[in-house]
C-alpha cells in the first residue's frame, strides 16, 4: 500500500472545554482498504469523522486527505468523498430522485448517474413516493445512494447499518465490499459492533474514551485478541514461587513480579494456597485483563 488516503496526526478535540473528546488521535487509512473504525458509543468516532469532513472546526492536530491538507483544499477533497454521517440526511418532502438531483447538481454528475445509484441500492421503483414515507432501511439506502453519486474514491460511513434489519445489514456489507473490490473505493466505516467489522474490514482502528487503542490490519487484531489475560503475583520469594508455579501454570518472573496466564478465579485460589503452604508470603495477587480485551467485551456486549 502506498500513501494513506487519510492521515490525521494528533487530533485533540473538546466540546466547550469539557474534557477531551479526542485525545491525540492519529488515524491512518491505507488506500484501497475497508477501515473499520470501532469503539463503544461515545468513544469519539463521530467526532473524528465530523472533523474529517470539516463539520467541526479543527482545534489541534492536522488532517491530510489524498495527501493534501484538508483546510487548504476543502472543496477539492470533498469532491472526491462520499459521506453518510449518523442518521439519514434526506429532504422528507421530496422524492428519491429529487433528493439525488440536489446533489447531482452539486457534484456535477451526468443525469444517468441517478439511475445508476438507484439501481445499486435497489430503489428504482419508488416513483412519486416521498422520502418521509420510506422505511428506515430505505432511507438509509437512499443516503448511501447520495454518498455514491460522485463515484467517490473515499467513502466515509458513520454507523451505516444502524437501524437496518439483518437482511439490510448483510446487503449493506456486501455493497461496501463490492465497491471496494470493483471500484477500489477506500471505505472508512465506523461501528460499535466488532462482529460486523470482522466480516468486512481489512484494517481496524479502535477508539475508546477519545484515545486510539489499536490500529492495524484485521489479522494483527485477531492475533492480539487471542492474547490471554494474566495473573500478577507479588511474593516474599519470587524465585521459589516461579519454581513452584512454572511447571503447572507456566509462570514467569517479570519486573519483580510473577506473571502467569489467567484462567479463572478458582485458579487464583489454588495458586495462593500452594504458595502459602510453601511458606511464601503473598503480598498481592490480581488478574490483569488487557485494556483491549475489556474493550472487546464492551464493544461486543452492545451487539
Amino acid at each position, binding site marked *: 500500500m502506498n500513501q494513506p488516503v487519510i492521515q490525521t496526526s494528533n487530533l485533540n478535540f473538546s466540546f466547550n472545554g469539557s474534557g477531551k473528546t479526542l485525545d491525540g488521535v492519529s488515524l491512518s487509512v491505507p488506500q484501497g482498504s475497508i477501515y473499520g473504525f470501532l469503539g463503544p458509543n461515545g468513544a469519539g468516532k463521530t467526532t473524528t469523522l*465530523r472533523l474529517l*469532513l*470539516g*463539520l*467541526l*472546526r479543527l482545534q489541534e492536530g492536522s488532517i491530510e486527505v489524498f495527501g493534501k491538507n484538508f483546510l487548504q483544499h*476543502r*472543496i*477539492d477533497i*470533498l*469532491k472526491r*468523498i462520499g*459521506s453518510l*454521517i*449518523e*442518521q*439519514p*440526511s*434526506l*429532504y*422528507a*418532502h*421530496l422524492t428519491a430522485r*429529487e433528493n439525488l*438531483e*440536489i*446533489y447531482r*447538481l*452539486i*457534484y*456535477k454528475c451526468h443525469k444517468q448517474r441517478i439511475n445508476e445509484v438507484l439501481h445499486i441500492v435497489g430503489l428504482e421503483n419508488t416513483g412519486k413516493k416521498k422520502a418521509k414515507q420510506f422505511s428506515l432501511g430505505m432511507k438509509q439506502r437512499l443516503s448511501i445512494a*447520495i454518498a455514491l453519486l460522485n463515484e467517490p474514491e473515499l467513502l466515509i460511513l458513520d454507523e451505516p447499518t444502524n437501524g437496518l434489519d439483518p437482511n439490510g445489514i448483510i446487503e449493506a456489507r456486501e455493497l461496501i465490499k463490492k465497491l471496494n473490490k470493483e471500484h477500489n473505493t477506500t471505505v472508512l466505516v465506523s461501528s460499535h459492533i466488532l462482529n460486523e467489522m470482522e466480516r468486512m474490514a481489512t484494517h481496524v482502528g479502535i477508539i475508546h474514551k477519545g484515545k486510539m487503542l489499536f490500529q492495524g490490519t484485521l489479522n494483527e487484531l485477531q492475533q492480539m485478541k487471542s492474547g490471554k489475560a494474566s495473573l500478577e503475583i507479588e511474593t516474599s520469594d519470587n524465585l521459589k514461587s516461579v519454581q513452584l508455579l512454572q511447571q503447572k501454570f507456566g509462570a514467569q518472573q517479570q519486573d519483580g513480579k510473577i506473571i502467569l496466564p489467567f484462567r479463572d478465579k478458582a485458579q487464583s485460589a489454588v495458586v495462593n494456597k500452594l504458595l502459602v503452604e510453601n511458606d511464601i508470603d503473598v503480598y498481592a495477587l490480581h488478574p490483569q485483563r488487557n485494556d483491549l480485551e475489556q474493550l472487546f467485551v464492551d464493544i461486543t456486549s452492545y451487539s
Partner: protein
Amino acid sequence: MSFIVSVQAESIKVKRSLAFWLSILGAGFIPVIFLLMYYFRSDVFVLKLAKDPWRNHILHGWQALSAFLLPMFIILTCSLVTQIEFKNNTWKQVYSSPQTIADIFFSKLFVIHCMILFCFLLFNIFLLGSGLLTNFLNRKYSFFSSPVDWEILLRMNFKSYISILGISAIQYWLSLRLKNFIASIGIGLALLITALIIMDWEQIYKVPYAFPLLTFDAIFKKRHLLIENHEWNSILYFLAFTLLAFFDTKFRKERG
C-alpha cells in the same frame, strides 16, 4: 458558476415545502378577503370605490399587508427555508458537499428573496384578479371601465421590497443561529409587535420591523422621495446583518 449550481440545488429543496405554500397562501389571503367583502357588502363598497377604484383597491390591499402580514411573512419564510435543513438533519450533508461556505450561505439567502418576490408577484396578480372578478360578479363596480393605476402598484412593490430587506437579513441570521424555529419566529414576532406599539416614536425610522408600514405611510401621504430615510436604513441593516450572519456562519465551530 458554482453559485448558480448552489441556487439550483436550493430551489429544488423549496419545491412543495411549507415555505412555498406559505407564499401562495400569504399572497392570496388579502385579495380573497377583499373579494368576499366587495361581493357581500356591495352596498358599501360600490360607493367607496366609485372614484379611482384601482388606486383605492391597491392602496387598501397594501395597507392591510404592510403593517403586520408582510413582516410576518418574511419572518416565517426565513425560518421555514432554514428549517428545511434543521428538520431533516441535512445541514451536515450540505456542509460536507463540495460547496464554499459563501455559496451555501448566499444561495439560501437568494432563494429566500426569490420566494419573497414570488409572493409579491402573486399578491399583485391576485389583487388585480380580485378587482376584475369583483366586477365580473357585480357589474355595478367600475373596475372594468377604469384604468389600472400601474404607477402606484409599481411604487408600492419597489419600495415595500426595500423596506423588508433589513428584516429579512436579521431573520435569516436568527434562523441560521437558532435551531428551534419557535425561537426565531418568537423573537421576530416580539420585535414586530414592539415596533407597531412604538410607531409614534420620532426615532421609529431606525426600527426595521416598522419599515413596511412606514413605506406604506409615505406613499399614502403622497411623499415622492425615491428612497425614504427609513428605506436607506433598511438597506444598511440588510448589508450589516448579512455580513454578520455570513461571518458568523463561516467561523462557526460546529456545523450541521
